[in-house]
């Protein structure tokens, strides 16, 4: 009797261990040497109907020297009706599993963004979870094929280069305005805010250069801001990281921190938006020919940013593209049915921006008032 009880106990333990071992997920195992990891994915307009995709795979260095010559990457392209269809067709050509789970960057052709928008060609990403939604998204102006064929000049693996270009811990600056894929999806579903996506062009020395940041209306690119104008977006959206600006008087200051206070309301049936930005900065360089006092430099900075802001608001208002998300602040005063009218309301909005800069220090060299 005792022996039987012991046997039953062992059977119970076994009965728990066997299912546990099955739950390890071995079914989904694909060894790393049986995968080709996509580092960067590019999508461009091919003709009126279809799209062409580019993918770049990093290649491991083989001690036998077999592979893609001296290159540490392989580029492939494929035409298809949609990006998802092109990826399917590409799979049919590949000797290994096409693994998109490590994709670091997604490039979309500017023409495609202007004509068809970004969301439709990337809808499959959310549905299938085949691509990480925190991948970086950028628009490309010019020949995408050429961009995918060029080796990274600073030697990083494909994909890592793109990430480093945007990340604050590496080459990122506020002008570059890092945008993750999920942010674009989020704006697509939010009629009260539009996307602002980096626009890149080919660079002679490096892989690409920042031309500006494209703003959207109804999911399509409708205009772009220069890198300098993008700083206003960063200041208003409180996404600032330290950056340098040159004043009209020739002094260079570094904006170290900023805080935006946004007050919204209605005036004469129009949205009334008042922004006050407090900027903390330090002096980097001053003109020896015409030395300026701290107060004068602060006033110069205030004037420079305020004038630039007027241009930025005019540009985005003309297209009804609220990239700043002011519309989100009107949720309590608009009904859900009125959200779609926000683009028109934004066009008529009265926006004022006041900058109050404060020079925290002047570096190790004294600045004589």
């Amino acid at each position, binding site marked *: 009797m005792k022996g039987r009880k012991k046997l039953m106990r062992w059977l*119970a333990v076994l*009965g*728990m261990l066997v*299912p*546990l071992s*099955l*739950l390890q*997920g071995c*079914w*989904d195992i694909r060894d790393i040497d049986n995968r080709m990891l996509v580092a960067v994915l590019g999508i461009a307009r091919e003709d009126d109907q279809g799209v062409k995709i580019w993918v770049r795979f990093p290649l491991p260095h083989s001690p036998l020297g077999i592979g893609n010559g001296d290159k540490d990457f392989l580029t492939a392209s494929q035409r298809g009706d949609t990006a998802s269809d092109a990826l399917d067709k590409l799979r049919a050509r590949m000797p290994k599993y096409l693994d998109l789970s490590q994709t670091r960057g997604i490039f979309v052709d500017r023409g495609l963004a202007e004509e068809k928008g970004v969301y439709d060609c990337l809808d499959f990403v*959310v549905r299938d*979870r085949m691509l*990480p*939604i*925190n991948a970086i998204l950028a628009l490309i102006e010019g020949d995408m094929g050429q961009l995918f064929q060029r080796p990274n000049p600073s030697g990083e693996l494909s994909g890592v280069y793109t990430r480093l270009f945007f*990340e604050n*811990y590496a080459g990122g600056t506020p002008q570059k305005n890092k945008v*993750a894929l*999920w942010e674009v*999806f*989020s*704006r*697509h*579903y*939010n*009629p009260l*805010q539009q996307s602002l996506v980096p626009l890149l062009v080919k660079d002679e020395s490096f892989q690409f250069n920042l031309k500006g940041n494209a703003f959207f209306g109804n999911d399509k690119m409708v205009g772009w801001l220069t890198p300098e104008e993008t700083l206003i977006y960063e200041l208003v959206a409180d996404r600032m990281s330290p950056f340098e600006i040159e004043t009209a008087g020739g002094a260079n200051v570094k904006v170290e921190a900023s805080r935006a206070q946004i007050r919204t309301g209605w005036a004469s049936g129009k949205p009334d938006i008042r922004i006050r930005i407090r900027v903390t900065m330090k002096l980097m360089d001053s003109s020896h020919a015409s030395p300026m006092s701290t107060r004068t430099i602060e006033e110069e900075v205030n004037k420079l940013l305020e004038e630039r802001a007027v241009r930025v608001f005019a540009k985005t208002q003309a297209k009804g593209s609220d990239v700043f*998300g002011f519309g*989100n*602040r009107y*949720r*309590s005063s608009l009904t859900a049915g009125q959200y779609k009218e926000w683009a028109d309301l934004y066009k008529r909005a009265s926006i004022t921006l006041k900058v109050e800069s404060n020079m925290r220090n002047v570096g190790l060299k004294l600045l004589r008032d």
Partner: protein
Amino acid sequence: MNDSKLRLSDAQYFILQLAVFGATSYFLYPYLILHTDGGSYWMPIATGLLAGILGARLFSGMMAQYPGLDAFASVKRVLGWPGLLLFALPYSWYAWRAMTMIARAHAEIVSMTILHTTPLWILHCTIPIATLLAAGGVASIARAAAVFVMVGIPVTVGITLLGLSNLDFTLHEPWRATDFSFLGSKTFYTSSFVWVGFLYLCSCGHHARSPGKLWRPYAVAALCFFPALAGAIYLPVLTFGVGFAKALTFPFLSKLDSISHYWLVVENLTAVFVSVVILLVILTLSLLLHSLVSALRALLPFLPSRFSYIAVGAGTYVSAQLIPSWEWIEKGIWADTPVRIYLVLFPSVVWLWSRLASGRRQRA
């Protein structure tokens, strides 16, 4: 230790309730709350919490009438066989459906997020594990719960805290909206499945030192888990906005996908989270299995215990396999709502009947 003489402390009940909250809160609850009418999601969550505590109070009030008996024996003592049939039959139906749907929902989540090609019959292996755990009795479940919760809850809380990045508070619908239109939403009532964890302890009531105070560990667990539960709804909303969060099947898991920090060693937070929640699912399934077997044995006392566990475990496994789609789970949880509400309200009938009976006795 003899299982029937086992005494569970309030801390153990609290741990069991935390496990149930952890297992049931992430698969359908955020989706349901986001689809309730009105923009203030805190209102359906808080209303559910209060209704849950009230339900637990009624339930422990029923258990307090006959300390030392489980819920089924208490009902039988007060209402006799008709009462037992009116309670144990719907309870068995509900427990079986809840087990089936919890197991299948988590298998679907795992399939959608990490293991895309693993067959469902493998992913349903949580059921045999839970069956063996349940067959070990309440003592085994309580011991396993201490370990599982020690692993599961800190990870769940830690991941929720990581989700505090990239929040934009202007994305939320007006905070002060006080319309009660959510009360007219079907999804609000469907979401009540999260708050009925006290029902899963039907078979454990007689292990309580003071059954009348059994609602307290439930209330403490509910209040402790409340921030995590609110996070499952608000973190996606404040990151993605209401529109995109509503369009997602698993908004909280997508929120985890969006987290990206230079210093974060773990790359796939979603996989860690889903794996940890499976531990809590196994625990909840074992609790449900144990209570379902207790209900069946209250109805059919001649049923051998070991056979009952094997039969219920096998039945649950087969039923989970037979569920055709995710949509079916959504409809199934809605279809069970009347039974769930009936079971929550049933203790008040027992209490009333008991009061009437004692009144009659005093008059006689």
